[in-house]
């Protein structure tokens, strides 16, 4: 990695590591989203197995 690239990486890391800053990592996916996706898939699977088999 050349100096210019390393400098750019360092500048970005500083921004991302600033937990309260505008460029910090995005918040995690809400647990309700994950549960909704899993529940939807389970229901869909059971209904389809009942219908198709």
């Amino acid at each position: 990695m050349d100096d210019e690239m390393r400098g750019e990486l360092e500048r970005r890391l500083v921004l991302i590591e600033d937990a309260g800053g505008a460029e910090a990592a995005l918040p995690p996916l809400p647990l309700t989203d994950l549960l909704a996706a899993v529940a939807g898939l389970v229901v869909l699977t059971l209904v389809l197995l009942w219908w198709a088999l």
Partner: protein
Amino acid sequence: MSAAPEAAVAPGEDATLNELPLLRRERIWGFWDYSSVNIGLAIATWAFLQGGAVAYYVGAKQAIASIVIGYGISVLLVSLAPCLPCGRYGVEQFVSMRSVLGERGARVLMVVMSALLAAAWSAVLGIMCGHALANVTNQIFDTRISSGAGVVSMLAVMALVASWVIVARGPRSIELVNRFVAPGLVVVTIVMLALVFTKTSWSGLVATPALAPWGDGRLDFMLAVELNIAGGFAWWPNVGNLARLTRTTRSAFWPNALGLFLASVVAAIVGVFAALALGSEDPTLWMVPLGGALLGVIALAFVGMANITSVVAQSYAALVAIKGGGGDTVRRVPWGLLAAIILAPAAVLVFFPNAVYDNYARFVSWGAIAVAPLCAVQLVDFFVLRRQRLDVRALHLPHAESRYGFVRGWNPVAVVAVAMGALTYVLLLNPVTYEPSGWFLYLTASLPAFVVAGAVHYAGTRAVLARRADWGGYR
């Protein structure tokens, strides 16, 4: 909140074209942008070919169930890992894998995945495009170009060149193309579905037997489910670098339900219906019998073009990965030249069109042998062992200085876990003969491979790596 320095990429550099972590303001895709890219990626001819392959084993009702269940499981898992680590931190997919496999392990993985799988998939799509355009030519000029003819290979090469022209211009061109192609593909799929029902009825479809089943109903259904689970896992090498461009974690997660899941499922089901109605698994042979000369040719030409958009998305993800993990020498190679190098192996493979095209199911299976365990170790590592927290700085440090250094840049636990998962798959489903073992009837092959790899990675990390802070930062 501290004052943030002005964010700008380095002169001459666009961070979406290299492995630097993206800042929030550089994320270019919201929910609908990523959804349209995702749909464009999902509804290529390969979704129709997937449906054609499923029709080999099961009839219409069991095909619908197997497609929804199979894709549902694997797309959900792929949406969790790699989409969420990459989306949350804006890191390149194979850079994020350094926290799982180590710097060197991730680099080897990147080379294998990007160079081999991406090239092979691009070849499949290029050949399908060649088939479609050859059928258009046969229809318009009354020629007799066969599926294995040299003309098909030349048309496939032209498709790869067109893909290179687009991908060389970067991700904004992918977004632009998909804004037009994705809605058009939805229309083509819906029109195909309507045309199928001008040829047959629902009761007629349900009564139509599978094209070439093994004869054991449960085994045929499980083979169809496995084929679809493997089809969903096939997105793993690509989607992290696409999710990296999204503005929120919800935008990184839910568009996969619209694109990789719903669009794939609809297109594959339409593919099953067309295959059963016309008695052929080749999607490029469905359009003209279904739509007549004019509509069929238009649909074929459009689907051929749609394959190009999928090659573009595939190549972009591979390019970012290789830029990220290829070291200084690779980083200095211009983007356009690297794109040409990535697509070059595919341009060779398309000269063996029948060998590539006729082994679709095995091809998908080979991918799942590696990808199901990889997805498992990444998911367990990110969500369970690291509680969704990555040290972005450590991801970019050399292994000797990084908390993700493991043992000389390798995580032996993750490597063993992936190997155990792959072995589990091979024991359950022979990837060469496609013959299943007894337990396959109850378990499939991809899911046990996933579970074994995840369990070995968790147990091994707790037992070995968590003892020392410099062995992956688990302590």
